[in-house]
């Protein structure tokens, strides 16, 4: 039980640290939410009457309890799943906003991450298998992809393929004009949403596949030098079998471990991308929250992101034994 106890202890401490950090950060900031809201309206060009200003102030009156009381109250709310109320989308609860955005992000970024991983691992395995051939010269080129600023690539892709060539939609998670009643469960909608996801997904895949590819290729090269590969060859096994069950299976272990972590970052991973594509996901919420100093929303998103990472880690703890039998004795 000790192993589990320690892991759970770790998760608890991390969670506590994140949530407390979450609590503290905005309180270290000057200014109060009412001002922010007024300014936001003013910037949007609307006339701000005295009435509105007065209304905002009554709404978002400042909290003058002691920090400690606030902290306790904060935890109380946390336990009820109450993440507070968004200032920018007043009076929508933060939890609702996140709940609506989460599926978009999970589906798009999740799928893209999986595609990128699978593609990278397969290509990497192949490149490792073909080590010492022309393929070696192509591998370093993938580093360029990795080093391209994400949003820069996205903007160029949009400008060329969506605006210029008109092959892809310009923005959003689906065609808001075609489906003005919002998402629905129909093939037409799913097809449309898929079409909208292609360009963002390509951006993610392009800028992340190189890492997987390179990592897998290197592991593959090392693995192929292992004795058990020689043994497998001596056993007269077919090359395909050696490639898959002996080499790739072992070489992929670190990648799979890394993948689970990356999955955890799916929620956070696309802040910039979602911004470029006006994609209705969590990353964009985060950006809006930061831009508008919507602390409650910021905290909420940050918390969800951290939870996702922890969940992925926990999941990894659970399944690691299946990936690597050597770890089973610990689970």
């Amino acid at each position, binding site marked *: *039980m*000790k*192993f*589990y106890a320690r892991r759970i202890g770790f998760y608890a401490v991390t969670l506590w640290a994140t949530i407390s950090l979450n609590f503290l950060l905005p309180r270290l900031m000057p200014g109060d939410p009412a001002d922010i809201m007024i300014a936001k309206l003013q910037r949007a060009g609307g006339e701000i009457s005295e009435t509105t200003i007065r209304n905002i102030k009554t709404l978002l009156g400042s909290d003058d309890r002691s920090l400690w009381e606030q902290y306790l109250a904060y935890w109380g709310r946390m336990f009820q799943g109450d993440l507070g109320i968004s200032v920018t989308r007043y009076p929508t609860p933060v939890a609702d906003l996140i709940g609506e955005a989460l599926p978009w992000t999970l589906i798009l970024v999740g799928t893209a991450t999986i595609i990128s991983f699978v593609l990278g691992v397969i290509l990497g395995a192949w490149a490792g298998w073909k080590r010492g051939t022309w393929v070696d010269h192509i591998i370093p080129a993938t580093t360029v992809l990795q080093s391209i600023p994400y949003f820069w690539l996205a903007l160029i892709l949009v400008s060329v393929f969506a605006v210029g060539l008109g092959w892809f939609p310009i923005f959003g998670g689906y065609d808001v004009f075609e489906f003005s009643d919002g998402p629905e469960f129909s093939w037409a909608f799913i097809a449309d949403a898929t079409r909208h996801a292609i360009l963002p997904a390509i951006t993610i895949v392009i800028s992340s596949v190189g890492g997987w590819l390179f990592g897998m290729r290197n592991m593959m090269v090392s693995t192929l030098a292992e004795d058990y590969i020689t043994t497998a060859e001596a056993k007269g096994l077919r090359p395909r079998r050696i490639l898959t069950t002996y080499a790739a299976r072992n070489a992929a272990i670190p990648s799979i471990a890394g993948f689970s972590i990356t999955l955890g970052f799916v929620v956070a991973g696309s802040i910039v991308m979602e911004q470029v594509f006006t994609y209705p996901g969590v990353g964009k919420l985060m950006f809006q929250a930061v831009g508008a100093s919507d602390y409650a929303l910021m905290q909420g998103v940050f918390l969800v992101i951290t939870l996702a990472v922890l969940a992925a880690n926990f999941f990894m703890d659970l399944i690691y034994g299946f990936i690597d039998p050597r770890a089973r004795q*610990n*689970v």
Partner: protein
Amino acid sequence: MNETIPAATLEARNLVKDFKLRSGLKTSILHAVKDVSFTLESGKTIALVGESGSGKSTIARMLMKLETPTSGSILLDGVETPNSGRAIANYRSEVQMIFQDPFASLNPFHTIIHHLERPLRLHHPHLSKSQVRDRAHELLERVRLSPADNYADRRPHELSGGQRQRVAIARALAPGARFIVADEPVSMLDVSIRLGVLNLLADLQREDNLGVLYITHDLATARHFSDEIMVLYRGDVVERGPADEVILNPQHEYTKTLLNAAPEPENLGKLRDEVRRELAGL
């Protein structure tokens, strides 16, 4: 080199070492060394033999204060020695160690001379820079790495295994220790050079009147290079006595097994015949 009083002794008294093992959900206690005592005298060699995992290295590491005994004590000239703190430095100028693997015990990053100068400086702070260098060269010559200049500025990977082990021996000699713990000093070396290294060690021991704890699983060399043999089995000393006595007239069952397992060219063909007979018998 230094005239030691004849009664110099390094004594291990009731050494016990337990390791806590954590495997998954359970923790268990591994008794790696159970109540081992012996006294090493200067000029004498004690061989510690036993199969893999019997606790030989653990004893060595406790002697070197790299591991804290669970209980028991180590006495130098009859005086209990500290387990930590500054006083350890003095202890270490008296007791030194040669590690099993000459590939791993020298830092690949540093030159040979660096490996020798450091202990010289640490244990003889009064020496000047050039004196230190001279001493280091002297040490190289003593371990038959001559001319010393040839070797001083090389790095470990530029030397062969045997040469490296000689450097390791020189390093152990540098502080002017009276006792040397040699943990399987030649098991990682090529057969043809093992004896050379062991002989060198024996020469140096005689010259300096060193006390040596020779750890090995090779019974043949244990017999030839030591005065006394202790047979370790699962952390216990199951048999001890003068070298020839233990080898030629083993008492304990385990010692016998060990002896039987050792290859013996004299027995050529014997095993085959034995097996054939056995099969025929079936």
